[in-house]
């Protein structure tokens, strides 16, 4: 019956590479028979073979009972094989584990040292809570074994037992402490390993052991153990700051004396992380000078990150980042070395170097560093013109040969893109070259790093804001990863805060929006969509800074707009309204017949763009019902009602405005109609300033106001009204309901639920008709005193016209001051607006983080 030994199996496997799985299947069947045999030799050999197959991915749980049988064998080699199989196969839920408790107890008590060792190793691996409770005392007794070999294994085993049986800790810790005095260095080393692991769970409990460990650190020569102790102290110093002073001596001695790089590294790391470097005791360096401990660490750290060995370089950079956080002055002069690390082929090293670079950039090196980082983004293989655009990626995949743009690369100018408005693609390199700069995480890290170093400390490193805007726009093209949200946040932040750069920013946004290669391929998810929405907002909000162009209206109402989601569409339409009214206001300044004709044509083309937009946005079904009368206003309303609320509200507003203008300009006149002049003031009465994210919470709730109380009665849900009741008694359109339409309706409803104006209602009330609505005359109207309102407005206007530095915060003042101190380049006269609080806010000294999300909503 006995077929093959383990070697036969392995040889057979190697010989039958073609039908390996078939060979394994037959072998498994043989093993199934063999483990049933009564002869322990066969059984054990079968388990060995099974264990080998387990390594190749074949389950061996079915043989668990047989494994226990082999563990119980009286022969050492079989017992060992059984234990090995058990450690590989058993897990906490294995049912046969309860059978092993007594077996292990017997082995632990064996007179054979090797059996005890095998049992300890096995138990440590497979222990369950029940076993831990049952066997704890047995293992604890073994700690007094005469052989150090057994003592060290018992310590490790006990560590695993107390993890499952925490009550045992009380008895274990004193023994652990005694083990630190063991005459055998291996036992001491194992005890230290165990203490390190336990201290990770609860460091406080092991503080009393610190003096003993301290003594070991000084006296031992076992580097592995010293590394462990040094690492342990790194986790203890935050709890006991006095330890830092104690560690100063031995750490500085070790740093100066040791030749082992691993120990040297851990000493420096602990000194930096454990804040030993801030102990004000000087040390002498190797040429006898008295220096700061931090300087000693920095000097020795150079040996790591300047090393040819990539491993040393990597860990050196890790610690350098920590050192930088505590002593930036010691790191700054390493700029060239660190920049050099960005050229390493190793991704991990580059990532670490990026972390450090962002922190060490100064006003002088900012431009250079950013240029260097950007060139890494450009020169990799994966750059494409619309890298952030999924849709476009597909296009690239299908006809990648057609659009191999072979522009020339201009790296000499300050900006890589903006000079031409186009970024350039190097020829695609061979696929085989794996450039770390292709890795998405690295690209994202580069972008993060650039944004971080540019906007750090309220733009304290920034000397040229136009360059910054251009850089951000360049990043839109070359980032190649999803950083749209970050880029748009930064664009908005700098445009809102830095008044001087707004005009340039608007120009760049206009350029971005006129780039067909981006605009035509946007989807709601693509990162570019977020950037474009922000661009639309900026263009709309600050359009008055540039000479008005009627073309801007078209830019903000592109045909691809329908592909975006409701929120994004709303941003574009709102911006288009602002741009349109601004243009009207502008041309009204020099009104004549030509201008009149221009206004007529632009208004009518805008109207037709809008109605085209509406009909393409709207529900398919609604469109079918209204194919005959496209421009009919009733139909228009029906279509609008089917759109997400935030879109339809803005579309309706814009449409009504254009309608009013077209009515007002129906006949040529000598002077501009008032509506053309005044409309834009709707959007410019109040200036939007950056508002602190916490501003609202600082405004106290007035007494007697209950924010949870609904205001008035719930408004009936009109969103379901697709068609007004037609003159002919027509069956409801719902009758045609197909699964497709239901799906769409459901989605629409979901969309609306997310809308800002959604007022929830019972599902049943959905299909209400117009007739159910209250009569218009029944709506109570309160008479408003307009004169009062107007005077308030003019007050505000007067106040605003005064020159003022809006909300300049203490923080930015401070950063300005620090800029003044730096030698070069000269400080620039740019106001960086801080966050404002709301009127009536309670005074709060805490400086809020900049957040301009509030302005974006407006």
């Amino acid at each position: 019956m006995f077929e093959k030994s383990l070697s036969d199996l392995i040889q057979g496997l190697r010989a039958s590479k073609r039908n390996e799985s078939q060979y394994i299947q037959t072998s498994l069947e043989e093993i199934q028979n063999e483990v049933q045999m009564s002869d322990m030799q066969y059984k054990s050999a079968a388990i060995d073979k099974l264990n080998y197959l387990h390594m190749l991915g074949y389950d061996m749980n079915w043989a668990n009972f047989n494994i226990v049988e082999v563990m119980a064998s009286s022969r050492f080699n079989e017992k060992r094989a059984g234990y090995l199989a058990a450690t590989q196969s058993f897990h906490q839920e294995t049912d046969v584990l309860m059978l092993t408790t007594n077996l292990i107890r017997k082995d632990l008590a064996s007179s054979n040292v090797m059996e005890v060792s095998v049992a300890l190793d096995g138990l440590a691996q497979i222990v369950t809570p029940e076993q831990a409770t049952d066997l704890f005392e047995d293992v604890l007794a073994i700690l007094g074994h005469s052989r150090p070999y057994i003592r060290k294994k018992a310590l490790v085993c006990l560590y695993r037992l107390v993890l499952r049986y925490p009550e045992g800790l009380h008895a274990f810790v004193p023994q652990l402490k005694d083990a630190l005095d063991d005459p055998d260095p291996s036992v001491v080393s194992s005890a230290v390993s165990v203490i390190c692991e336990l201290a990770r769970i609860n460091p406080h409990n092991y503080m009393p052991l610190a003096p003993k460990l301290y003594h070991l650190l000084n006296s031992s020569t076992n580097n592995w153990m010293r590394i462990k102790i040094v690492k342990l102290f790194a986790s203890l110093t935050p709890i006991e700051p006095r330890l830092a002073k104690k560690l100063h001596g031995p750490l500085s001695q070790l740093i100066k004396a040791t030749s082992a790089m691993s120990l040297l590294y851990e000493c420096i790391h602990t000194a930096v992380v454990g804040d030993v470097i801030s102990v004000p005791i000087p040390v002498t360096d190797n040429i006898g000078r008295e220096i700061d401990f931090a300087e000693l660490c920095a000097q020795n750290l150079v040996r790591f990150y300047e090393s040819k060995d990539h491993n040393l370089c990597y860990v050196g950079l890790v610690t350098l980042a920590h050192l930088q956080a505590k002593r930036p002055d010691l790191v700054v002069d390493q700029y060239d070395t660190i920049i050099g690390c960005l050229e390493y082929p190793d991704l991990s090293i580059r990532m670490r170097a990026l972390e450090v670079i962002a922190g060490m950039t100064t006003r002088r090196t900012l431009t250079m560093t950013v240029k260097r980082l950007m060139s890494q983004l450009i020169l990799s293989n994966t750059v494409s013109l619309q890298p952030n655009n999924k849709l476009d990626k597909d296009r690239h995949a299908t006809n990648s040969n057609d659009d191999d743009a072979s522009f020339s690369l201009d790296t000499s100018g300050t900006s890589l893109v903006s000079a031409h408005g186009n970024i350039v693609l190097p020829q695609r390199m061979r696929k085989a070259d794996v450039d770390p700069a292709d890795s998405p995480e690295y690209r994202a890290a580069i972008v993060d790093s650039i944004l971080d170093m540019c906007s750090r400390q309220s733009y304290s490193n920034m000397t040229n804001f136009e360059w910054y805007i251009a850089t951000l726009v360049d990043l839109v093209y070359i980032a190649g990863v999803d950083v749209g949200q970050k880029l748009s946040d930064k664009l908005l932040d700098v445009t809102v805060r830095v008044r001087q750069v707004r005009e340039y920013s608007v120009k760049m946004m206009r350029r971005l929006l006129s780039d067909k290669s981006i605009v035509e391929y946007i989807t709601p998810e693509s990162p570019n969509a977020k950037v474009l929405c922000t661009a639309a907002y900026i263009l709309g909000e600050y359009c008055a800074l540039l000479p008005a162009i009627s073309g801007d209206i078209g830019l903000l109402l592109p045909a691809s707009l329908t592909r975006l989601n409701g929120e994004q569409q709303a941003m574009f339409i709102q911006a288009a309204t602002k741009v349109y009214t601004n243009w009207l206001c502008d041309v009204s300044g020099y009104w004549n017949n030509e201008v009149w004709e221009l206004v007529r044509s632009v208004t009518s083309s805008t109207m037709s763009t809008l109605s085209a937009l509406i009909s393409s946005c709207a529900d398919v079904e609604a469109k079918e019902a209204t194919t005959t009368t496209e421009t009919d206003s009733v139909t228009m309303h029906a279509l609008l009602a089917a759109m997400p609320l935030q879109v339809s509200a803005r579309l309706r507003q814009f449409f009504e405005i254009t309608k009013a203008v077209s009515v007002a300009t129906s006949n040529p006149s000598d002077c501009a109609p008032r509506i053309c002049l005044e409309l834009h003031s709707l959007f410019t009465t109040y200036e939007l300033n950056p508002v602190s994210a916490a501003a609202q919470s600082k405004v106290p709730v007035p007494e007697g106001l209950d924010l949870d109380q609904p205001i008035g009665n719930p408004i009936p849900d009109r969103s379901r009204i697709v068609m007004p009741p037609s003159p002919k008694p027509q069956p409801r359109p719902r009758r045609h309901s197909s699964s497709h339409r239901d799906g769409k309706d459901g989605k629409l409803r979901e969309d609306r639920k997310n809308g800002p104006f959604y007022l929830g209602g019972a599902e049943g009330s959905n299909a209400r008709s117009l007739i159910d609505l209250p009569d218009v005359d029944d709506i109570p109207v309160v008479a408003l005193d307009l004169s009062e309102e107007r005077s308030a407005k003019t007050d505000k206007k007067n106040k605003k016209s005064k020159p003022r530095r809006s909300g300049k915060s203490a923080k930015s003042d401070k950063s300005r001051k620090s800029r003044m101190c730096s030698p070069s380049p000269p400080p620039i006269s740019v106001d960086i607006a801080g966050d404002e609080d709301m009127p009536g806010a309670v005074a709060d000294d805490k400086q809020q983080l900049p957040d301009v999300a509030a302005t974006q909503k407006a």
Partner: protein
Amino acid sequence: MIRSVLIFNQLGKPRLIKFYEPLDAATQQGLLREIHSLVAKRSDSLCNFLEGCQSIGGSDSRIIYRHYATLYFVFVVDSSESELGILDLIQVFVEALDRVFRNVCELDLIFHFDEVHYVLSEVVSAGLVVETNLKDISKAVGDKKEMAKPAQEQSRLGLGVLRRGFA
């Protein structure tokens, strides 16, 4: 602690799989494939550390490996271990194997995969390092081998087929 020790060749064929936290066979194979795909594409000029292996331990875990001829020796560890220390430890482990097998090569590990486990258990037990002294490691391995021998002799008398079972 050390979460896992793996030895595999350039093609990803496992030569030793040891997980100090229980995992089922499918997960183990998945991890093996994942780690192999990460490690095998790295040239020898890159650093020997990889951070954040998602499936085992998440962000706390690091892969530390060494490449010897046809084999990769991989240790998956958490942040309590020193990277450079583990690199040294891998060297110790390989030297111990070299002593046990006398000029170790991949074939030795294939045909004596159990022996590799026994050597490892003298260096690392339940995820903690118990011995770093080369002499002590090879002595312990030798002692146990000696102990296993009589049984092997016996089997050799009885059954020739088992001859190659234990070296």
